[in-house]
Structure formats: C-alpha cells, structure tokens
C-alpha cells in the first residue's frame, strides 16, 4: 500500500508551489521524513523504561481545565444568551407536527383528535403503493410487513416508531437537500459544512444525550432532532455530488431554452441529479431506522423502547421479533424509495376514461373507506380473538370487523417465549460453548490482550509521531500536520490511556473486517446474484438493532474484549464489503477485457487490474468502517469496556456535561485524523488513475 501511495505524479507536485512545503511533498524527502518519524517513535519506545514519567504521559499539572471551560461555555450559550429559547421554540413547532401525526397513526390525544387509523387501512395502503411503484412483489413486501407487525402484536409500537420516522425522514431529506444545494453553489459553504458534518457523525452518541434533552425536550422532539442530525450527512454529500455531475450539454440546453435561475435548478439540475439525490434519501431512511433503538434513551417511543425493555428482563425471543420488524420496515421503505427512483411516468392512450387513469388511487380510497367502516363497526364490540376456539363461537362478520380494527397484544401470534427458550437452549449447547470458550481464550490471551498492553506501553509521543508519519505518508503534508495537532489535543484532553484502548478496539475491528470483508466481496462479485445477496445481507446487518445480538454474544464469549470486537466488527464489515463490491463492479469492462486478452491469469487480473482500480472506492469503505467503528466502540459500552465509552457512561451520573464533551472530543479528534488522511489518499489515487 505504501508503494502505491508514493507514486504520485510529478506534475501535481510541481504545481503545489515552492519552499518547505514543496520539499516535503517530494517523494524522496517524504520517504526519509516518514522513516525518520517512525525511527524516533521506536527509539522512544525502546527507551521507555528509562524515561522520566513526564515524558511518557503528559503530567497532570500541565493539563488544562477543559471541563470547566466547556461547562462555562455551555452555560453561557444555552442560558445566559438564551439559545435554549430558540431551540425550545423550534421544538414547539416540531412537537405540533409530531403530535398530529401521532394522533392519526396511533390515536395520541392531541390535535386533530381523530381515532387511530386501523391497521388494515395502513397495510392495504402500503400494498397498493407498493404495487403502483414496483408491482406485485413490492406490494406483497410492503403489505406483508404491516400485516406481520399487526399479527405479531407490535402494531402500536410500530406506529409509534413510524410517527417519528415519517417526520424525521422527510425533514432530513429536505434540510439535507437544501444544504447540499447551498454547498454546491458556494465552495466556501462546502468547506465549512464538510468538517462540521464529520464532527457530527463521529461525535459519540452519549454526547448527544444531554444536549438533546436540554435543548429539544425529552420525547419525540429530541428523538427527531437526533435522528435528523445523524441522517443528514449522506444526504448533503450525495446532493452536492449529483449536482456537480450534471453534464454541461444539459446545462447548455437549459440556458438556450431561456430558463431563469430557479427554472434551471428546478427543471434542469435537480432532475439530472435525481439518482444521486434519491440515493441520499435512501441513506436517510436507513440511518433513521438505525437510530430507532438508541434514541429510545431520549424519548423515542415504540419499537426501540420496547426492545430495551425486553432486554432489561432478558427476553431474547421477544427482542428478536422486534428486531425483525425494524429490519422489515427499513427494507420496505428502502425498496419503495428505490422503486420510486426508477419509476417512469405512465402515459395513457388518448381517450382512456378517468377512472382507468386513476385506478390505483381510487383503489386506495376504496380500501380506506372499506376498512375504516369495518373497524368502526367493531367499535362497540368486545375485542375479537385472532384464533377462535371452539369453532362454534366463530362468527365471520364479527371476526372480520374485530380483527380489521385491532389485533390485541394478548391475541397476537407472537412466539416470544417459545423462541426465547429455543435461543437460550441453543446458546447453552456444550459443543458451542466449548468452541466459543476456546476462541475466547486464544483470541483474548494471545492476540487482544498483548496488543492492548503494547499500545498502552508506548509513550504518548511515540504514538503521536507514528500517527503523524502514517497520515503524512498516506495523505500528504496537510493531513500529516493535522494528525500531529489532533493527537496532541487528544493527549492534552487528559484521557490518553482510555483513548488508546478505544483506538485499539477500533483498529482491531477494522483490521479483521478488511481481512475477511475484502475476500468475501471478491468472492461475491464473481456472480451478479451472489453480489445482490451480499448487499441484502449488508442492509440487514446495518439496520438490525445491534443490541439484539449483543446479548447472545455475551452469553457465548462472556464480558471480554473479544465480545466487544465482535459487536463492532458487524458494523465495520458492512461498509468494507459494500464498497469493495461497488468498486470491483465498476471497474471498466474494457480494462478487464484487455487483461484477459493479454493472457492474465485470474489472480493477475485481480491483483494487477481490478483491485488497484477499485482501491479508491475500497478506501472510502475503509474510511466508513473506521467512522462506524468509532461510533460503535462507544455503544459497545453496553457490554462492558474500559475505554472512553465507559468513562462517558460515568459522566452521565450527575450530568457532567463538560467532562462528557472532553471525552467526546477525544473520540472526534482521533476519528478526524484517520478520516482526513484516508480521504486525501483516496483522492490522490483517483487523480492518478484518471477516475476523478
């Protein structure tokens, strides 16, 4: 990898100006500086036993009182300057919208004070929408998901969750789109927004908790704000990307037609960038559903809260059922939005009657009325059991009306308890326990614990220099300087050992993800069908609430480092596999054909043509994996860790906001360092390969 990184083209170097900077960009100097820095780092490490303590770690007395400063700044902004009134005003508006939606979906006692829409109406509506967008299969998926939610007895929770999603996702889409357009219009805005987005993305979730409830009021409002904030970045990035890619011919045509600026945007740019914008929408939806469980801590109602409740009393079966519902919702919303992308407007023969042109909307209205009437018929009756026994009591009209109105939790088909027992019995199998114990013993004692100890042994300065050297070698001068500054800040924030433990978990999880993910992706890409299955698996793992498999993991591997790595690994694998598949698929066929013609073996073709060309895309995946790892390593605190996440957990007792943010920023600066370096490297490679 290092070799590829150094073969930068000389023209680019020449353009970068003169002086020290130009000298540092020069390849031979770069190589010397790189090895020089690493050499000093190694020397310091060797000398460590004889170094005075002050040189190994920054002495306590030199640490600045960041905690108090942050607390003071927060007090000033939030209360003295009255920022809280602004946010509270905004959340008031948001609350009104959320309440109205909640009233319609599950009958919350707010304006407009309707009764909840019966589940049959929503399920049939989803099926018809699915049919309109993507035919029978999508109709079955969309309708089936809601039928599942009702029959399994999770209807109300699903609607509580949906009541936030249907507000948060459009909000994320619109705000992200607008900011994206703005970034495209102005380079300066883009340059300010991008780093901010990154900080938002890598800021640990535990740091959002307190500000969200203070500024936006605990409940659906805070949950919506947190969800939107989390889902914005991809939408903004994709919008800007799409608009930048609009071809000049199309723009010319628009100008020739005499479009005004607004018309240009509305009729030329946005339609041409449609695909990218809708990919952004798709990511918004996925991320919204990924947040369902986490935001339960700040008032998100529904499935997430119920999931945590089930985990609290150790009901694995039920939490699994809830997890399935969340994944189904994610897949349905995703497939619907994707179908909407490829959907072409329909054209009818002249003279087609009105009802035929509007057949599907009419069908929707008909279903709405039918099921509404049915359920209203049931409103005076006793609840109807789903399965009637004995059959002599069965009365078809009553049953239809009753079931159309509501499936009661007690009557549902939920198999939570039975399922729970079989999961637990499986996890207790002797051979399984023996295998996992062996893995745990070997991986922890011979791999994770020694590497962890080694990382903690390193003097602070060694780590800073090594990271600087790597960032400089990968990305160039600017990433190198930033790496140095950022890691100095991390050291100065005063939680170095914990930061190193965090970094250790992140590195291990990313390393293992690369080691397994890339070969898996290479294997999958050989056949189109395999690749599609792989992408579906990625989607599933991305939205399946991690808490559900954390507990079985604890039962198998105990509360130990390997369990933590496994929980992060699931998240880091997803982007590695996804982007490797993408990268390999998009290698121009001319090049692979050329390789075939020149008689390359499969291995040669892979290593000399496909992988190098896919490398910039894989690097994006690696970068995503690191960002996800930094996010998950804090969540893994749920299992039990000793890193920054555990310390952050401690700050929640007694609401120590300043302390919390000191830890949060330790994570942010480490994540930023790697993000910047890898991105700069990918950018350079893309230029060299002529892909940019």
């Amino acid at each position: 990898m290092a070799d590829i990184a150094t073969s930068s083209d000389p023209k680019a170097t020449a353009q970068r100006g003169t002086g020290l900077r130009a000298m540092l960009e020069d390849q031979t100097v770069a190589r010397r500086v790189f090895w020089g820095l690493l050499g000093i780092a190694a020397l310091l490490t060797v000398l460590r036993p004889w170094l005075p303590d002050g040189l190994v770690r920054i002495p306590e007395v030199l640490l600045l009182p960041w905690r108090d400063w942050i607390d003071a700044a927060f007090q000033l902004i939030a209360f003295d300057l009255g920022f809280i009134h602004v946010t509270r005003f905004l959340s008031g508006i948001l609350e009104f919208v959320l309440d109205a939606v909640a009233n319609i979906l599950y009958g919350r006692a707010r304006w407009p004070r309707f009764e909840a829409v019966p589940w049959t109406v929503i399920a049939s509506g989803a099926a018809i929408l699915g049919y309109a967008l993507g035919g029978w299969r999508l109709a079955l998926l969309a309708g089936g998901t809601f039928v599942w939610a009702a029959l399994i007895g999770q209807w109300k929770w699903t609607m509580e969750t949906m009541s936030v999603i249907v507000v948060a996702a459009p909000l994320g889409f619109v705000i992200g789109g607008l900011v994206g357009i703005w970034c495209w219009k102005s380079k300066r805005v883009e340059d300010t927004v991008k780093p901010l987005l990154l900080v938002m993305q890598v800021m640990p979730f535990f740091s959002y908790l307190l500000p969200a409830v203070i500024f936006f009021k605990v409940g659906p409002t805070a949950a919506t704000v947190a969800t939107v904030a989390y889902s914005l970045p991809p939408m903004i990035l994709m919008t800007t990307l799409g608009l930048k890619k609009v071809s000049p011919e199309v723009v010319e045509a628009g100008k020739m037609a005499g479009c005004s600026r607004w018309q240009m945007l509305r009729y030329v740019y946005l339609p041409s960038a449609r695909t990218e914008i809708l990919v952004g929408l798709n990511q918004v939806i996925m991320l919204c559903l990924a947040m369902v469980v986490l935001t339960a801590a700040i008032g998100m109602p529904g499935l997430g809260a119920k999931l945590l409740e089930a985990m609290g009393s150790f009901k694995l079966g039920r939490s699994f059922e809830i997890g399935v519902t969340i994944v189904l919702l994610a897949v349905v919303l995703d497939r619907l939005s994707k179908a909407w992308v490829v959907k072409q407007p329909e054209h009818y023969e002249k003279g087609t009657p009105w009802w035929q042109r509007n057949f599907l909307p009419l069908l929707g209205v008909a279903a709405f009325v039918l099921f509404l009437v049915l359920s209203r018929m049931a409103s005076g009756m006793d609840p109807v059991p789903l399965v009637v026994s004995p059959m002599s009591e069965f009365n078809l009209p009553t049953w239809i009306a009753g079931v159309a109105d509501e499936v009661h939790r007690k009557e549902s088909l939920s198999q939570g308890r039975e399922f729970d027992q079989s999961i637990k019995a499986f996890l207790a199998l002797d051979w399984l326990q023996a295998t996992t114990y062996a893995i745990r013993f070997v991986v922890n004692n011979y791999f994770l614990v020694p590497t962890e100890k080694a990382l903690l042994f390193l003097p602070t300065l060694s780590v800073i220099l090594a990271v600087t050297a790597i960032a400089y070698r990968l990305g160039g001068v600017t990433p190198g300087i930033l790496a140095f500054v950022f890691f100095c800040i991390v050291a100065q924030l005063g939680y170095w050992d914990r930061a190193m433990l965090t970094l250790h978990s992140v590195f291990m999880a990313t390393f293992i993800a690369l080691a397994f993910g890339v070969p898996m992706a290479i294997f999958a890409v050989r056949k189109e069908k395999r690749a599609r299955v792989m992408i579906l698996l990625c989607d599933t793992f991305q939205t399946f609430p991690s808490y559900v498999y954390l507990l079985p993991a604890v039962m198998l591997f105990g509360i130990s480092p390997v369990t933590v790595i496994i929980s992060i690994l699931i998240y880091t694998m997803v982007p590695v596999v996804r982007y490797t598949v993408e990268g390999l698929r998009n290698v121009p066929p001319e090049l692979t054909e050329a390789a075939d013609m020149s008689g390359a073996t499969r291995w040669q073709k892979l290593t000399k043509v496909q992988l190098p060309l896919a490398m910039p895309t894989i690097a994006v995946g690696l970068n995503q994996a690191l960002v996800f790892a930094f996010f998950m390593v804090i969540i893994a605190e749920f299992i039990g860790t000793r890193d920054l996440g555990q310390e952050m957990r401690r700050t929640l007792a007694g609401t120590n906001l300043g302390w919390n943010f000191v830890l949060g920023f330790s994570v942010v600066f480490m994540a930023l360092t790697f993000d910047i370096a890898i991105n700069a490297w990918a950018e350079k490679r893309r230029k060299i390969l002529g892909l940019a």
Partner: protein
Amino acid sequence: MKTKFIMSAAAMALASATASFAADDSADPIVIPIHNWSSQIVMSHAVGQIFESMGNNVEFVTTDSQAVYESVRLGDVTLELEVWEGAFGQSFRTALEKGGLHDAGDHDAVTREDWWYPMWTKDACPGLPSWEALNECAALFATAETGDKGRYLDGPVDWLKHGKERVEALGMDFVVVNAGSAAALWAEIAAAEADKRPVVVFNWTPNFAEAVWPGEFVEFPAWEDGCDTDPSKGPNPDALFDCGNPADGYLKKAAWDGMKDKWPNAYEVLTKISFTNAQIAEMARLVDIEEMEPEEAAEEWLGANEDVWKGWLPEGAS
C-alpha cells in the same frame, strides 16, 4: 386504548362533581418517565392510572435513567418514581443542587445492592455467604482472562459501585470487570446457569432476577456510616470501602418543583405513594414471568390491591 379513554372520561366527570378537591389540576398531561426495567415501568403505569382515575391526563416518555433528572428539573418530565440511592443518588443530588426538582418522599421499600451469587454457586463453595469463604474459593470464579484469580462482575460504572476499591481494601483475590448494562449481567448469569458454573455478580433487590434465579447476597463486614469517607471505619484501618453496601438504601420519588401548583391533587397523591419490596416484586413478576404488557400488569395490580392505593386518594374521591 378506547376503553381506557372512556374510563378516564367517566372518572373526570366524577371528579369534577366532587367538591373536596382543593383546586383543579391542569388539563395538561402529567409526563411520567419510563426506563428499561420492568418494576419501574409497571409502577409508572400504575401511578399513571391512579392519576387518570382522578381525572388527570397522563403521558409516558421513555428516557435514559440518568439523563431523566435534567428533564425533571426543566419540567419536561413531571416526576420520577424510582430514585435508587445507589444507582441514581448522584444524578438526583446534582439536580437537587441545581434546583428545579425536589424529594417527594420515600417508598417503604428498601434497596440492597451488593455482590450476589445464584444458589448453584453454593454447591461449589459451601462456606458462602461469608466473604472470607468466597475469597477462599476465588479460583472457582476464574475466567479465560483472569488466570487463577476470580472474576467479580460489577455493575455499570455510572452506578458508582466501588467494587475495585473493596477488592483492594479487603485484599481479595478477585479481578473486577464492569458489565455495561443490566442486560449484560443477566446474559452472564444465564450463560453460567446451563452448566451450573459458579459466578459472583453485582445484583440488587427488588428485582425480577430473584424470581428467575434464586440466590443470596455475599455477607461483607457490615456497613458503618463513614465507610466511604473515613479509613478507620471497617476492618481495614487504612482503606476506604472495606464494608458491604448499606442493606437498606432508600427508594425515593422525585417531583418537578412546578408540579405542586400545576397539579395540586396529583402532587398530593404522589407524596403519599409508597410501595413495599413485595409489591414492587409482584409488579415485576406480572411482566417478567406472566408476560403481561406493563399497562395490563398495572391494571391487574391496581385491581388486586385496591386497599393499598385507595387510601392515597384525596378524601371524597371514589
């Protein structure tokens, strides 16, 4: 949902007809926070239903059990029904100092949070529950990573349990590992249950686990006041935390300062509310063992225990 609405509407009509209410409660909903353990959820629903029967509107919001005190302080959440001394005492006290919420009285229930083992552990280490006996069996509790030392699984760090300090103060052969959540503790106990492996973990009462896995607390040198601040207390004259935790920690209710004026009647009831350990355990049982939904469990419990809660209502209410 519908029946409940009708029920509360009827109760509202009834309530407004009764003259004995000092002032009317606001029609705004009383917001009750729910967390992720069953007794708290059922208790919250039970109290919510009592408020509803008095004609109040009630809403529930799920929150983190530490961050909730900030919300109570700001008035976004009206009250908190389970303030555990050990786990949430610090957040509660911090919020109390900042102002905005106050102590609304204790439950009868006392809480105990300490080292605990499931019964099967005693077969392997018959000297239990004494802590010295536990220490002699330390090797039995070893895991893949701890060598010949035992592993004690402590609670999440935000519960501020000082397990490590105690191990050092009493010179025990144990390594302390913190679980990140209650669920992770249950997972470890459940994994040990299959082949009856001895484990010693952090646990507390009242709690659903008592019903699933019978067990006992380890008996440490009894708690003396000042054991956490004065080294001379407890068996080790040079160390803090050389005692067990207090066996009778408080379980409090907390209320937003504005509640008294906005919902005077509900506030009145809140200050009288007091559950016992047995009642709390029963509430948890209905959900954890009987698999009821919290709302139903609360209804069931209120139905079976009218004599308990009817006395808390203002005079003249039904």
